[in-house]
């Protein structure tokens, strides 16, 4: 049983487990000697807008106090005044490294509320897009971790492949970063030939680049020395905080929403759940790398299954899915449905649903309460970054400042998702 209340932190024990020596001194004289360091809000090494007020004893961190809210945009409140389809652009801007996962996760939540069945083909298309997004997200995280350890080269090599992924997005939905992908009941359009060709090309070209990236970092002694035993967290503490995703798996708990609670047809796919040993930065790096390979495996399987999958790219449910444009221009009934859907009048039932997807960073949940109107009554995003960031001070106590930077970047805290 995982308790929701946090156990009080025993500082002495914490320090010992972090391997630091004699850092605790209760006397005020000693505390007066500490330096207060403002890390952030706009520090280049934090990759986003967060502030950390660190108490430093020389180069060692004694305590940290994180501040959230620098780019708080009140998404949950805005969502209360928007019809369901206008909330997708809001979800783009949470974890902007993997927006398709956010978009599609949101649509699956609404579909759960409305009871829409998505055809198999649309599900597989979604899986392809989500796994591509995961690859892009992990590529950024790991290559930026490399940059933070001082190795810039690997970052540039893999960024070309991330660019390829963005071109696939562009072909599928029309934008690269803020994708606004998917529609209620499926996808907005079928993959065209260029998109399919680009995905196939990506599957072929990506492995050598990834291997090269890994050969630069995986067994490199400098990288290992910088990351092993840095920013570690035990499985128990991680679970108490509510960690999910790669950061939890790095501690050795193989929790993955795709396996534990399959959605969108993930049960049809073969993949493994990589886990680490002790939850330090190196573990997180290795877990993310392996997840990239597993995602690639899923995409390959999905591309094989896609031509044989049943159904079209959207659910044939006229109440929710926009009619074809040609019908709207000519047929009265289609035009009425078109108006109705665009005005947001989709007769949502009263009720509450929670749906979680395995986002780039962990369990990305949507808790939606509907009171039957055209907008949600209340919407809460369960944002994994928000949870990781709470644990950050505990994880960096006793380390040097440069290690804290690595810890933060390997947690993959993304400002947009942190603040929502």
């Amino acid at each position: 049983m995982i308790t929701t209340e946090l156990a009080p932190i025993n500082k002495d024990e914490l320090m010992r487990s972090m391997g630091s020596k004699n850092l605790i001194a209760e006397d005020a004289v000693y505390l007066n000697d500490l330096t207060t360091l403002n890390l952030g809000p706009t520090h280049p090494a934090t990759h986003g807008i967060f502030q950390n007020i660190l108490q430093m004893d020389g180069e060692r961190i004694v305590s940290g106090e994180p501040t959230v809210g620098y780019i708080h945009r009140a998404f949950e409140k805005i969502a209360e005044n928007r019809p369901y389809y206008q909330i997708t652009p809001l979800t783009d801007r949470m974890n902007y490294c993997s927006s398709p996962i956010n978009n599609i996760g949101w649509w699956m939540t609404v579909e759960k509320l409305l009871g829409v069945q998505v055809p198999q083909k649309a599900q597989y298309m979604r899986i392809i897009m989500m796994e591509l997004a995961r690859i892009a997200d992990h590529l950024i995280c790991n290559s930026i971790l490399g940059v933070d350890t001082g190795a810039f080269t690997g970052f540039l090599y893999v960024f070309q492949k991330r660019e390829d992924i963005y071109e696939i997005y562009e072909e599928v939905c029309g934008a690269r970063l803020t994708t606004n992908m998917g529609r209620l009941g499926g996808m907005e359009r079928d993959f065209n030939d260029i998109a399919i060709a680009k995905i196939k090309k990506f599957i072929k070209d990506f492995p050598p680049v990834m291997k090269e990236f890994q050969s630069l970092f995986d067994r490199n002694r400098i990288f290992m020395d910088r990351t092993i035993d840095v920013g570690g967290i035990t499985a128990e503490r991680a679970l108490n905080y509510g960690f999910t995703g790669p950061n939890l798996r790095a501690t050795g708990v193989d929790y993955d929403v795709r396996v534990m609670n399959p959605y969108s047809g993930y049960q049809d796919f073969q993949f493994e759940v990589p886990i680490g040993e002790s939850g330090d930065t190196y573990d997180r790096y290795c877990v993310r790398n392996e997840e990239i390979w597993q995602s690639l495996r899923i995409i390959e399987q999905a591309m094989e299954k896609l031509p044989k999958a049943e159904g079209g790219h959207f659910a044939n449910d006229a109440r929710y899915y926009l009619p074809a444009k040609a019908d709207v221009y000519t047929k009265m009934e289609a035009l009425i449905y078109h108006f109705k859907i665009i005005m947001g009048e989709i007769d949502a039932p009263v009720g509450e649903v929670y749906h979680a997807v395995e986002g780039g960073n962990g369990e990305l949940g949507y808790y939606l309460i509907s009171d039957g109107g055209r907008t949600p009554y209340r919407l809460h995003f369960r944002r994994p970054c928000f949870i990781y960031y709470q644990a950050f001070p505990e994880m960096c106590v006793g380390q040097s400042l440069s290690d804290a930077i690595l810890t933060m970047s390997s947690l993959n805290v993304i400002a947009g998702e942190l603040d929502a």
Partner: protein
Amino acid sequence: MQLSNRSKKVSNKKMTFAEKIYLPAIAGGLSITLKHFFRKNTATIKYPEQQRPMSQVFRGLHILKRDEEGRERCTACGLCALACPAEAITMVAEERKKGEEHLYREEKYASTYEVNMLRCIFCGLCEEACPKEAIFLQNNVMAPAFFERDQVIYGKDKLVEPVKKV
């Protein structure tokens, strides 16, 4: 902790002797970077002169289309403004008068139509909402940079497709 039977341990923190002495890793890393140094494939393009091919469905700058006879298609129904999550579109509707049939296709038209490009997030929902094939996001034109704030409120002068010369 084991929750499924699919887990796989991936990190190995024990360094071998060769990894400890580090020299082979230096040579390996250098050979990779040197290979790239002599490789001829450039990832960048010389942007303003050279443009990358955009996808057919790319969501760029808006355009208000005319029909085959050169009349404005927009009927000021307001669906695009309603669908816009950023509340970027405003318009004023007007009745078509006698003698204006060659200008506007429907009986009602938008006498002013403005898109605030500072608010617009290029989500494409207006294009999807339009029942009259009027507003489109072009795939090859982007919203340009600007110097004054009023330059980014795009009125009909900038949005409506220019009349084709015969």
